[in-house]
């Protein structure tokens, strides 16, 4: 071993934190190298000399102050109760993943930043899609309203019924739509036959008033309307 390598082990030699092989190597080197021997002898002498400094005892004042502190702390009403469960839990929980050395703490910190960025990216994309869907729904709703109001103004009852169908369920249909539906059955029923092809049978279910008015109008009409009644009864089933 060279002198520099030997000197690197001097502190091990002094503290005794050294294995037998290294100790032997150092001692061998000392026999051949007087500068290293002199340095180590000087260091060893001083290291031993440091042992003469006795352990000192603090004054009784330290003990008295400590017990006063402890008593005051125990009598404090805030102690322990003021510490929320989370405040007590957090340091232990963080101890599971946060390294003790500040130098290594940047690794989990970077990891958290990365996770935050990725989560933020996906969340913003998701929110963007949500906004787009809401816009499409609004546009469809506008189209439905326009189609509905346009159909209600038609003279054919089938068109009116289709308009009402756009506003399902019927129980929530506006009064004006209900009136538009019932008017043809009270008078001219020329348009009623068109309901056969334009209106699904499910449309008439749960709408008692409509069925009653339709039945009344059939009984009041001449024979050609019976064909229409038959067509409708096929659709209505229970009429």
């Amino acid at each position, binding site marked *: 071993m060279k002198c520099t390598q030997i000197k690197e082990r001097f502190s091990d030699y002094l503290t005794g934190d050294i294995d037998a092989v290294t100790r032997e190597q150092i001692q061998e080197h000392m026999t051949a190298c007087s500068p290293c021997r002199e340095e180590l002898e000087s260091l060893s002498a001083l290291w031993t000399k440091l042992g003469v400094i006795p352990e000192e005892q*603090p004054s009784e004042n330290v003990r008295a102050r400590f017990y006063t*502190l402890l008593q005051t702390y125990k009598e404090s009403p805030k102690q322990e109760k003021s510490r929320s469960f989370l405040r007590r839990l957090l340091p232990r929980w963080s101890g599971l993943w946060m390294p003790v050395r500040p130098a290594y703490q940047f690794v989990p910190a970077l990891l958290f930043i990365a996770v935050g960025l990725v989560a933020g990216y996906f969340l913003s994309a998701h929110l963007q899609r949500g906004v787009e869907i809401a816009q499409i729904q609004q546009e469809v709703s506008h189209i439905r309203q326009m189609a509905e109001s346009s159909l209600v103004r038609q003279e054919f009852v089938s068109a009116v019924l289709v308009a009402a169908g756009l506003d399902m369920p019927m129980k929530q249909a506006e009064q004006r739509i209900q009136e538009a539906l019932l008017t043809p059955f009270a008078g001219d029923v020329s348009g009623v036959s068109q309901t056969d092809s334009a209106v699904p049978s499910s449309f008439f279910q749960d709408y008692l008033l409509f069925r009653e008015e339709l039945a009344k109008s059939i009984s009041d009409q001449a024979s050609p309307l019976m064909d229409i009644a038959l067509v409708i009864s096929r659709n209505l089933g229970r009429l």
Partner: protein
Amino acid sequence: MEQVRDGHVERLAVLFERYHVMLYNFFIRLTGNTSVSEDLVQEVFIRVLKYRATYRGEDKFTLWLYRIARNAHVDYLRKRKVEISLDEQWEEAPSKEPSPEERTEQAQEIAWLNQAMRRLPLKKREVLILSRYQNLKYREIADLMGCRVGTVKALIHRAVKELGKAYFELSGGVTS
């Protein structure tokens, strides 16, 4: 310590009885001032109470205690507004003449050693105290100081060399 952490603060008295002399000696060798050292011992136990929830069972308790002690000492130096970097901090040795009792050979040696110790920069003095008097292992000192084991070894070597020079100067070349 686990019991103290879990709310049995009266158990801190046991820890105080076991460790307060050790802490006092750590501080007295670091500062050379008895009243400051006593204050710092008190401060350490205040902090143990305050931060007891942060104690992790897997840590050696004395290591955790020394970590608190070092922080308390650093804060004390900051309060004193010592305008020297912490690595090169230097506390002035008391310039008092040795008392008649100290005039015996061993007492004289102790006085010189203490003065020489206080001439060391803080980091070297701290490493030397932790290794020579507090009997901490290299790994433990490295963990405390946030450096490598190799750095600790080198610091000990240099600290003893510098201490030797200072002692030689103080003793006027007398080596017994």
